[in-house]
């Protein structure tokens, strides 16, 4: 084994271990990110604050309200007396939805007529509104069918009709955390390896130690590999840490092969380490390196389909996303962890990474020179 390489790796580990703040960042940040994104970045709508204006005050109107409450999508927080009161609650955000049942609701039903009910939804947050909108309709329809059945005296489901039964695969409860945890793993891999590689190399330049290194027999590639290896080790540790916490806190199922996941992560790491290396050749100070790193990471996270589905993006952005390695890694992560499928199911992203990884890393290594000029 190359003793120069070993001594650089050993030295790099000492740097990391002697810097408690960085050490904390490397091991605690993943947990914080996971918990935050797992819990907070959820679009699951549960118990939306709802106000009711019941102008009818009959058993029938209360049944309808009960149907909404029982659906678990809506929590009835307020009963109001006027539309103005309802508007005010919506205005100041105390409720996100309002049900208005006009007087005469029960009478209309009794006469066999259609009864009108208004459902107000706060559309300022589209993702909440979309879910609330769908829920208001489906709960209402189910309730309507019950009324029909009672009126006709037949079981509607016994009549010949189309019966659609959706079945959600991979994530039957549609939990956001299942979707987020694999994504957070990808993001953390990128964050740690790219940023810290760039910092570790720029630090040598900033503190002047590069001047001593250039007159030693250390080769450029030894310096690069020696600097990068400790961070690969830490990245893998973090990967397992996030997986473990994901299972523990969020019940994320791990259906596929962890070994395959680790192997493909290595391919992904070539792209992030290469980017870090590239940044280190541009930045003169650690601050600059950090700035450049975030500058590339933030748009990358969006273009990778981290928060918002790629399918919903304009064509130009979709095209751009093909250049973002994280995009492929997220597909691989979600496929292995949630779907439990193997290589044949996602050959395309793997091929993309197999091309991008060596390309980025080689290009960056060629730019990187162990020199003062």
């Amino acid at each position, binding site marked *: 084994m190359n*003793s*120069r390489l*070993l*001594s*650089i790796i050993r*030295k790099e580990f*000492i*740097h990391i271990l*002697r*810097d408690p703040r960085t050490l904390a960042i490397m091991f605690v940040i993943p947990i914080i990110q996971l918990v935050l994104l797992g819990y907070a970045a959820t679009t699951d709508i549960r118990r939306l604050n709802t106000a009711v204006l019941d102008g009818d005050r009959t058993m029938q109107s209360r049944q309808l309200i009960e149907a909404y409450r029982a659906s678990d999508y809506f929590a009835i927080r307020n009963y109001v007396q006027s539309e103005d009161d309802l508007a005010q609650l919506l205005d100041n955000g105390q409720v996100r939805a309002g049900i208005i049942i006009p007087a005469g609701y029960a009478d209309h039903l009794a006469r066999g007529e259609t009864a009108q009910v208004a459902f107000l939804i706060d559309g300022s947050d589209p993702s909440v509104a979309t879910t609330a909108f769908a829920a208001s309709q489906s709960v209402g329809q189910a309730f309507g069918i019950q009324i029909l059945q009672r009126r006709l005296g037949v079981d509607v489901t016994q009549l010949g009709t189309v019966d659609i039964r959706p079945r959600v695969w991979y994530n039957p409860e549609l939990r956001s955390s299942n979707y987020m945890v694999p994504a957070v793993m990808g993001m953390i891999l990128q964050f740690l390896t790219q940023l810290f590689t760039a910092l570790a190399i720029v630090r040598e330049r900033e*503190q*002047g*130690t*590069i*001047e*001593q290194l*250039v*007159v*030693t*027999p*250390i080769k450029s590639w030894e310096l690069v590999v020696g600097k990068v290896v400790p961070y690969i080790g830490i990245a893998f540790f973090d990967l397992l840490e996030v997986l473990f916490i994901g299972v523990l806190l969020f019940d994320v199922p791990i259906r596929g092969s962890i070994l395959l996941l680790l192997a493909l992560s290595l391919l992904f790491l070539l792209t992030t380490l290469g980017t870090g290396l590239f940044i280190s050749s541009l930045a003169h100070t650690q601050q600059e390196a950090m700035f450049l790193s975030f500058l590339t990471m933030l748009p990358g996270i969006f273009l990778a389909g981290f928060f918002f589905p790629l399918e919903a993006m304009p064509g130009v952005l979709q095209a751009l996303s093909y250049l973002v390695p994280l995009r492929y890694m997220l597909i691989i992560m979600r496929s292995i962890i949630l779907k439990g499928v193997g290589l044949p199911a996602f050959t395309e992203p793997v091929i993309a990474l197999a091309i991008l990884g060596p390309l980025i890393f080689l290009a960056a290594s060629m730019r990187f020179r162990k*020199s*003062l*000029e």
Partner: protein
Amino acid sequence: MISIDHLTKQFDTTVAVKNLSLDIQPGEVFGLIGPDGAGKTTTLRVISTAMNPTTGRVSVSGIDTGRDPEAVKQIIGYMPQRFALYPDLTVIENLNFFADVFGSPRAQRAELTERLLRFAHLTEFQARLARNLSGGMQKKLALAATLMHRPRVLLLDEPTTGVDPVSRREFWDLLTEIHLEGVTIVITTPYLDEAERCTRVGLMYRGELIACDTPGKLRAEIGAVVLEAQSAQALAARRAMEASEGVLTVSTHGDLLRLLVDRAERQAALEAAWRAAGIDVQNVRVVKPRLEDAFVLLLTDDGRRRTEKENSVIGRPSSVEK
């Protein structure tokens, strides 16, 4: 030992070293001096292989630095001006790291390490982080680190700048020991008393070598006479003389006047002039020139005084040095 042949080093717009030719013999302690931005650091960096020359060639022990830098690295030890060891590594970890990267065999290393630690008076501090050492101790550690691969040539860039006088003396004692073991030393220094200790001194100015000889010869061939005098009105005495014929430079140090004149015979005329101006000046005498006098004269020659002033207004052209 070191042969520099028409070396020019150019950065974007500045020429840091201009057509420099110099031969340094084995066993020399060669001092490179000159004002900031003169190109001393760049010269050392090119010799050390840290930088490539723009034109010209440098060879160490007959090995061309451009053709076989790896072989040159084994022969030389380079100590940069800035502390360039790892502040978060201990003394011993720093030494071991540099021994490791030079591939020095572990078996012989224990003895060498122990000897260098003792030599640098760092034995009891070997477990201390480098950042917690005093400035002088850091310099000694840096010197020890450059010696871990037993170089035959040492390149030291202002190793004593910013170090207290006691540590400076200690450092020079170490250099003497190394020198006696046959190591060739090239050192840059802002202190002319240190330059006096060198076997030869080269004065660099604006990228050029404008003088190069033994300190004794430089002093002897100064081409001027140095006068000293005492006066309670030293400043007035100085002002009265500055434009006089034959006076090359005048400087004051408290009540001491120091004049460089072209001939010893000027003394009588000067004393007469002071008397006429009513300035009390006593104890006028001819003294032995110092290296400093030689360099002041060399630098003030051919209108160089003006350009030096420009230099000091612009400040240190540090971009060239760094």
